[in-house]
Structures are given as structure tokens and as C-alpha cells.
């Protein structure tokens, strides 16, 4: 039961992350939300990989998730650098056409 529980949690995390990606405009928050989506997918993958007889996660998804975590960090580093450069060049922390001051939770 428990592995499926974690897989379902992963699915919920994907929903939370997508909401963050849609509703927040600050680019660092979008990066954060994107990471929540990613780790939700990993957790779903790991949980599904633990089904069936025997204990522990299937080593193949485990290895791929480790690869995924490292690649997610690489993508995050690149994205964060893009945001800081954008800020240094233009002073903006949101994409053009999106306003940072659209509500209390839009920062």
C-alpha cells in the first residue's frame, strides 16, 4: 500500500507545482515550482517502482531518478543564472507582459 501512497503524493505534488508555475509570476518562484513538479514525478516514479513482491525500489528507476535529480539541478542552475542576468540587465524579475504587482500572492 505505502509505495502507491507515495506515488499518489507524487501526483499531487505535480498538481501543486503546475499551479505554482501558472499562478506565480516571479521567475525564481517559477523555478521553485518547476522543481516541485520534477520531484513529484520522481516520487511517483519511485513509488510505482516499488510495487510488487519483494521490498525496495526497482534499482532501474532509482538510478534514473538519481540521474534526474542531478539533471534537474543543472537545469535549475542555468535557469537561476538566466534570471539573475535578466535582473542585472533589465531590473525585471518577471517575464515581459506579466506584472509583479498583481496581488498579494503574485510576488
Amino acid at each position, binding site marked *: 500500500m*505505502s*509505495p502507491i*501512497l*507515495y506515488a499518489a*503524493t507524487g*501526483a*499531487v*505534488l*505535480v*498538481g*501543486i*507545482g*503546475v499551479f*505554482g508555475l*501558472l*499562478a*506565480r509570476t*516571479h521567475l*525564481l*518562484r517559477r*523555478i*521553485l515550482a518547476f*522543481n*516541485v513538479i520534477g*520531484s513529484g514525478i*520522481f516520487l*511517483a516514479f519511485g*513509488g*510505482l517502482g*516499488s*510495487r*510488487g*513482491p519483494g521490498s*525496495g*525500489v*526497482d*534499482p*532501474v528507476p*532509482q*538510478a*534514473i*531518478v*538519481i*540521474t534526474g*535529480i*542531478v539533471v534537474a*539541478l*543543472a537545469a*535549475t*542552475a542555468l535557469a*537561476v*543564472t538566466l534570471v*539573475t542576468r535578466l535582473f542585472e540587465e533589465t531590473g525585471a*524579475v518577471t517575464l515581459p507582459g506579466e506584472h509583479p504587482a*498583481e*496581488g*498579494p*500572492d*503574485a*510576488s
Partner: protein
Amino acid sequence: MTAALVFDLSLCLLIAAVALAAVLADDLFTAIVLFIVYGLLAAIAWVRLDAIDVALAEAAIGAGLTGLLLVGAAARLGGRGAPPAAGRTPWRLLGKAAPAALCVAAAAALVVLVLALPDDAPGLRPLVAETIAASGVTNPVTAVLLNFRGYDTLLETIVLAVALVGVWSLTPDRDWGSVPGARQHARPDGVLATFGRLLPALGLLVAAHLLWAGADAPGGAFQAGTVLAAVWLVVVMAGVLPAPATADTRVRLLLVAGPAAFLGFGAVGAAGGVFLGHPAGAAKATILAIETALTLSIAATLGLLVLGVPRRPA
């Protein structure tokens, strides 16, 4: 309900709640701290799934280094994360309600899908268990990473290098090849500097242990490389050693040493008939050699990725 199930349920609820709080938090710094907490809780989830290798990677990379990246960027952006004082109007609320409803629906559909999957999926576990004797190591995750699916790992190390090239390519022209990261102001005999002088020897041992243990137990090149990168970042931030200039040839050689060694062994394998195939009998020695080179390159790449674009002269 058993105690274990109660624990799992509470942990899952907590993970989802903290993730939601990280997305909704008003203050950017609060959001990032919540994200780090979320990463650590996710690491506990991986422990519960018996995936210690992933738990180590999630705690060190997912929570630690990602958190450090976000904190550093938030600091560089200054107060540009502060919530505006304007109140929430119903119109704006409606604007948020639509994506919220969409996301709840999507998450619910995903959960239904996950629950609908058959419960008896052996996956690739039997196959790995069958062939692990030939892989040279007894930790199945390391066997998959360095042997059965070695090409994944090879490409991944190249992705890391490419990401670093991407970060460096955002350097303003005048700073090209200079030193990355902010200038540090830690006092030479202060708390952080002393920590930075005492920590590296211990960190090196822990990394070596993770690397060595990775053959037969949780651990390996990625976890060891992350520990080394973290220790190195502490040393740099403490002002004990300066960050290197990105034009330094030794730095660049270090960055490609791991992928190059991996490719080299792969080519030797290709000469023997299988690209990335390890010579029979010497698989463990080969894997340890590749992993050592990989660890050093991963540590250098991760550390430099966190330091970001070059921005001051050497």
C-alpha cells in the same frame, strides 16, 4: 491501520502541505526555506521507499544545492521578492481560481491513474538481480548507473558540463574567464573561516567513504561528488581559498576528466565488442576508476554551477 501506514500517511500529507506552502508563501525567502524543508521531507520519503541512494541525492542535491542556488539568487535580486501591499480583489481571485481548479483536476486524474495501475509489477528487479553477479558491484543502483545503463550516466555527466557551459556563456564580455561568485568578506580567523579550515579533511573522508561504499551499499559518485562540492563551496565562501578563474586550464581539465575517463573506458569496451562494456573480471576496478574521476568532475561542475557566472577579475 498499522503504525507504519499512519507514519506514511502523515509524511505524505506533510510533504504536500509544505510544497503547497512553498508555492503560496508571500515572502520569497520563506518560500525558499519551505522548499528546502520540502526537499528534506522528500528525502525521508525515499528512505521509506528503501531507496537510500536516492534519499542521499535528494537531501544533498535536491534540498541542499538547489536551495543554496535559490537563496543565492534571491540575495542577488535584493528585495525584489517582497509582496506588494495591494489587496486581493475578487477579479484577481477569479483569475487564480481557474488555474487552481485546473490543477486540482489534473492532480486528481493523476492520482486516479496511479491507483488504477496493477499492484503486481515486478519491473526490472528480477533482471538486475539475475545479472548483478557480472556487474562487478553488489549495490544494484551502482550496477545500473555504471554498467547496465552506463550510457545514461555518461550522457548525464555531459549534460552537467553543457549546463556549466550555458551558465558561463551568460557572462558579460568584460568578465569572460574571470572568477565566479561574489567576493567573500569572512574574517580570516572568524567562525566561518575556522569551520572552512577544519571541515575539508573530514569532508574528503566522508566523500571517499561514500565513493568506496557505493560499490556495495548506498553511495556512489554523485553523492560523493556533491559532498565534495559542498565542502569546497564552504571553503570558498569562508574565504579560505579563492574560487578559481574559469579560464584556468586546470579547472577545465578537471571538469572534463570524468566524462573523458568514462568515454575512454567506453571506447576500450567498444574495441572489445561492446561500447561501455566493462572487461570481464576487471569490472569492479573499472567502475571504481571511472567513479573516482567522475566524483572529481561532478564536484567541480556542481560547485561552479552554484557559484554562477564569472563576475570579477582573478
